[in-house]
């Protein structure tokens, strides 16, 4: 499975939020992300990601361990493997023991919307990263790899309906943007 995902800068956050709230009520969550790499930076060089994320939500606090492979097309979509972990501290120790080191850690403040559109389950996330100016939107749907093209077309269409223009799409990673700011 692959994440068909597009990310864009939001020029009119109030308007986009209003549109999204018509799909469903937004769920505010804080993500605390720590990215890891080996001392040679091999994962980053190969466009791969290893991340521990703790999600502070309204109903629970949960952590997930995620590995993302290199981008498979120009949209930035990446094969993704993710599993929930009970004890992020233990995972941290485990990764250190395997030779990985934390490379960057930052917070994302998110408002999540899960809904169905174009016959697909979509997850839209409005994102603020305190160190970056601006509000961003990510829209994703998980699909088998051979459906990626169609799924991206649908994702683009939903974004268009929200008033997001194609020229505001971005493939830049938050990790790179935050690192550039520090």
């Amino acid at each position, binding site marked *: 499975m692959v994440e068909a995902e597009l990310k864009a800068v939001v020029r009119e956050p109030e308007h986009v939020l209003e549109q999204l709230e018509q799909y469903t009520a*937004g769920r505010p969550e804080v993500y605390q992300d720590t990215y890891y790499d080996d001392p040679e930076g091999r994962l980053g060089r190969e466009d791969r990601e290893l991340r521990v994320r703790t999600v502070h939500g309204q109903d629970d606090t949960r952590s997930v361990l995620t590995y993302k492979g290199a981008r498979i097309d120009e949209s930035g979509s990446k094969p993704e493997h993710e599993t929930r972990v009970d004890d992020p501290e233990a995972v941290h120790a485990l990764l250190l023991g395997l030779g990985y080191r934390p490379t960057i850690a930052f917070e994302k403040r998110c408002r999540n919307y899960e809904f169905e559109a174009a016959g697909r389950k979509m997850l839209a996330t409005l994102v603020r990263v305190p160190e970056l100016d601006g509000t961003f939107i990510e829209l994703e749907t998980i699909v088998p790899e051979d459906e990626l093209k169609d799924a991206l077309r649908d994702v683009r269409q939903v974004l268009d309906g929200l008033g997001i223009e194609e020229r505001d799409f971005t493939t830049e990673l*938050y990790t790179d943007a935050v690192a*550039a700011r520090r």
Partner: protein
Amino acid sequence: MPTALVPIALPDWVWQKPEVREALRARSMGAVFRIVQQHGHSQGRIATACGMAQGRVNEIINGRREVSQLDVFERIAEGLAMPDEARHLVGLASNRDRRRGGQAFDLAAFPEIVRVYSSQADAASEIQRQARAAVQLDVLAVRGLGLIGLNDSLLRGSVARTGERVRLRVLLLHPDSPALAQRAGEIGESPESLANGVKLSEARLKELSAVCDIEAYRYRLLPTWRIIRCDSTMYVSAFDANWEGHESATYKVMETPHGPLYRGFRRMFEAMLDEGERTV
């Protein structure tokens, strides 16, 4: 055309140069782009920052095309992170919050109260988990026996670590203060009993200096807020008449750039610490 998450950042003095101000006033984006190029930014980088095609940037630079639409000026101003004064010269409003929706939008869409618990007991395991990973712990309590004073208190097991020493700061109610007598009355206890509870807690806090960097202080203010801070996350509840702190609903408040609650509680804690009487 993919746009950039990070605008081009020029030093402030660049925007103050007479030729730059002149270009802005004339709304000549070609001249502005040429100046940006002189500061080491390629046409491609300008295009990405401003969400334009590189060919379009090239046309503007070479005078084959003029910018006339307001939304394009806005895009360029954002992409080049123009300070307000530069925006004014182009004729744009200084509202640089527009793109991010402003403080009120941020706090409504991404609230600093992340979660609500109906009592401290409901929050206990979460608080312990946060406390175990925190470098800095702050506690504002009355006598603190439930939070830190006793062996089975909520936070006691979280402060001794292998490898690093936690910084722990605790504010407890002054045993000889009028506020303590008032609080004792509110919860149907004798002032002597409550004061002894505070002193017991202080004695047990001293023991923690072997395992962490502890500071404990006495305050004289009427107990109102009960706060546990684990780095940038706070758990906040309240004291009231006939209402014990641990019975209060608890808010989980996380630090945000504009959040007044986190900032206010943090500031209040520091002020109480400054005025407090250090005991440990």
